[in-house]
C-alpha cells in the first residue's frame, strides 16, 4: 500500500507519522546537544581541575585545554611529583540542556544585579512592545499600499520601482540616522523595524493581491459590481487568506530585525538582557533568552494560524471535524485538499 511509503512523493502522511516527524524535528538537534553535553568522550575540550597537584599555575576550579593538562601530567609523572587531577568539561559557552532548562525558570526568578536593570519579563515585554508597534505602523501604511499596488497597475508602476530599490538598503544602515532624528529611546528602534518590514510588505502583499483569479473579477463584473465594490467585495476577500499568510511570515521577519533594532540608541529589551548575561558569563540564561524568542515567535504563529481557520472558514478542510485546529502548524492544512466524493453528494440531491 502506498500508505506504507514514508518517502512517497507529494503524498499526505498519516497523522501519527506527521506528529512523530514533528517531534523528531525538535528531538534530533536536542539529541546532538545532549550527546555533546553528556557523553564525556565526545568533544569536551577542556579539563576542569579538581586537584592542582604539583603544577604551580593550576588551581582547583580552573579550566585548561586538554593538551596542556596532559603535558603537565606527563611532566609531573616523569619528575615523580603529585599528578594533577581533573574532569573533562565543555567550555562555559556550551551549557548542558538541563542547565538551560533550569535557567528558563531561574532567569525569571533572578533579580537583576543592578537597581535600574530590568527583570527578564520586563525585557521580554519591552521587546514584544517594540515589535508590535513596529509591525503595526508598517502594516498601517504597507497593507493599503500593497492592496492598491496589487489591484491597480497605476499604483504598481508608481511605487514599486522605488520600493524595489529601497528594499535592498539594509535596515540597520539607517540606525545612526534614526537615532539622530528620533532620539535614543524606543522611537528609532520601532523605526528600524518599520524600515525592515515595510518595503517587503508592500511588495509581498501586492504580489498576493495580483494573484487573484481574474475570472472571479470578471464574474463579479457580469453581476454588476464595479469600481470600489470590485475591490472591497472581490479583490480583498479573494486575496485575504494569502495576505494573512504573508502577514504571518512578515511578523517573523520583524522579529529578525528586533535584535538589530534594540542595539540602536540605548540597548534595550531582550538584547540588553542577553548582552548583560553574556557579560556575567551566565550562558545558560543567554540560551534560555534566545530560546524564549523562538518560543514566543512560534507560539504567536501557531495562534495566528489557528485564528486564520476561525476567520476564514472557507479554507477549512472538511474531511474531519475540527479536533486539532489548535495546532495547525503540527497538522498543516494540505495545499490541495483531496477532492470530495462527488457521487455521494449528487446522489444526495437526486433524492
Amino acid at each position: 500500500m502506498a500508505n506504507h511509503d514514508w518517502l512517497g512523493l507529494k503524498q499526505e502522511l498519516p497523522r501519527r507519522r506527521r506528529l512523530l516527524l514533528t517531534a523528531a524535528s525538535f528531538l534530533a538537534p536536542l539529541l546532538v546537544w545532549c550527546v555533546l553535553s553528556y557523553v564525556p568522550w565526545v568533544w569536551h575540550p577542556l579539563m576542569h581541575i579538581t586537584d592542582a597537584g604539583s603544577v604551580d599555575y593550576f588551581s582547583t576550579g580552573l579550566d585548561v585545554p586538554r593538551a596542556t593538562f596532559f603535558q603537565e601530567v606527563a611532566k609531573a609523572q616523569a619528575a615523580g611529583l603529585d599528578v594533577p587531577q581533573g574532569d573533562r568539561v565543555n567550555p562555559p559557552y556550551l551549557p548542558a540542556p538541563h542547565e538551560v532548562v533550569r535557567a528558563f525558570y531561574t532567569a525569571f526568578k533572578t533579580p537583576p544585579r543592578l537597581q535600574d536593570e530590568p527583570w527578564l519579563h520586563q525585557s521580554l515585554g519591552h521587546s514584544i512592545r517594540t515589535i508590535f508597534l513596529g509591525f503595526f505602523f508598517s502594516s498601517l501604511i504597507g497593507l493599503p499600499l500593497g492592496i492598491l499596488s496589487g489591484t491597480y497597475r497605476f499604483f504598481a508602476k508608481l511605487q514599486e520601482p522605488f520600493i524595489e530599490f529601497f528594499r535592498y538598503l539594509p535596515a540597520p544602515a539607517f540606525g545612526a540616522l534614526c537615532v539622530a532624528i528620533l532620539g535614543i529611546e524606543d522611537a528609532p528602534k520601532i523605526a528600524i523595524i518599520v524600515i525592515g518590514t515595510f518595503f517587503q510588505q508592500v511588495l509581498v502583499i501586492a504580489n498576493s493581491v495580483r494573484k487573484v483569479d481574474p475570472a472571479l473579477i470578471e464574474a463579479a463584473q457580469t453581476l454588476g459590481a464595479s469600481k470600489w465594490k470590485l475591490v472591497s467585495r472581490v479583490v480583498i476577500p479573494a486575496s485575504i487568506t494569502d495576505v494573512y499568510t504573508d502577514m504571518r511570515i512578515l511578523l517573523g521577519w520583524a522579529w529578525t530585525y528586533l535584535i538589530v533594532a534594540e542595539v540602536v540608541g540605548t540597548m534595550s529589551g531582550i538584547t540588553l538582557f542577553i548582552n548583560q548575561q553574556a557579560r556575567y558569563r551566565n550562558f545558560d540564561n543567554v540560551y534560555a533568552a534566545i530560546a524564549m524568542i523562538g518560543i514566543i515567535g512560534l507560539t504567536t504563529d501557531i495562534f495566528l494560524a489557528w485564528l486564520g481557520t476561525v476567520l476564514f472558514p472557507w479554507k477549512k478542510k472538511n474531511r474531519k471535524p475540527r479536533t486539532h485546529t489548535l495546532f495547525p502548524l503540527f497538522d498543516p492544512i494540505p495545499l490541495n485538499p483531496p477532492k470530495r466524493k462527488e457521487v455521494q453528494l449528487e446522489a444526495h440531491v437526486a433524492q
Partner: protein
Amino acid sequence: MSPSEIKLPDYRSLAPAVAARFERIRERPVILSVRDLKKSFGANGSTHVVFDHLSLEIHRREFICAVGPSGCGKSTLARIVAGLDEASGGEILLNGESVAGPGPDRGMVFQGYTLFPWLTVKRNVMFGLQMSGKAPSTADTEARQWLDMVGLSKFEESYPHELSGGMKQRVAIARALANNPRILIMDEPFGALDAQTRAQMQNYLLQIWKKVDVTILFITHDLDEAAFLSDRIIVMGVNPGGIREVIENPVPRPRSPAQFISPEFLALKKRLEHHIHPPVEGEPAEKLPMIKLTDAGDEVE
C-alpha cells in the same frame, strides 16, 4: 450501419409543429442584436482578424447555441456580448440600446468555476442582488428561491469547495439568473464536467430555461449538446472567421435523450459535422507511421 449510410431527411425540413414554433419565436421582440461586429488582435501590420461583419439577432426566450472549431472566436463573441472583451468594430444592442462594458443585464456562466470561494452558496447567489442595492432580507429570500429552483436548497450554507463540479455550475447559473438578466451567456459551462454530469446538467438547464424568462446564448464545442439544447445553432468557422450558417434546429421540443437517434437529430448532427470536420478528399483516415511493437497473436482489431 453508420449514420452516414442511413437515408436521412434534409436538416432544413421542419416538421409543421417545429416550423410553427419558429414562426412564434420570430414574432417575439429581438433581445440581442449584434451588428457588423469585428474582432481583431495585434496592432498595425500584423493584425489577425478573428471575425468581421458578424451580425446576429436573438429573439426573446430563444436558446441559441454557437458551435465552431477552436479558434473560430465563439468564446470571443460571448465575451464581447458580455462586455468583458472590447470589439474592434460594430455594436451590440440589448433591447435596442447599445451596450458597452459588463453589466448585470447580461449574465454570464463561465467554463471555469467562478463562484466566490469565501462566500457560502447562498451568499454567492445574493452577490448580484446586493450589488444592485437590494435589501439583505429581500436578497436572502430571492437567493433561496433560486437555489430551490436549481435543487440546491440543502447546500445553501455550504462553501463552494464542498460542492461537486456540476453543483458549482448550477449555483453559478442560479447566481447569474438571480440578477434577472435579459440574456444569459454561457461559455462552455459544462466543458469541465464528465459526460454523465454534463448530460444531467443539460437536462437541468432545459428545465430552468422553461421556467424563467431568459434568452440564452450558449457556446459549446460539443455538437450533441448544441443539437440537444438549441432553438437555432450558429455555426462559426475559421479562415475566414465568422458565421457559416445559422441552422434552425429541426428536433421537436420537449427534448429527451431518446431523440439522440431520431432522424432529425442525426440529420442535424451530420450537417454540423460537415461544417466542423469537413471530409477531406482521398484521405479516409490518417495512418500513423507506427511500427508494430507487439508480437503477433494478440490482434486488438
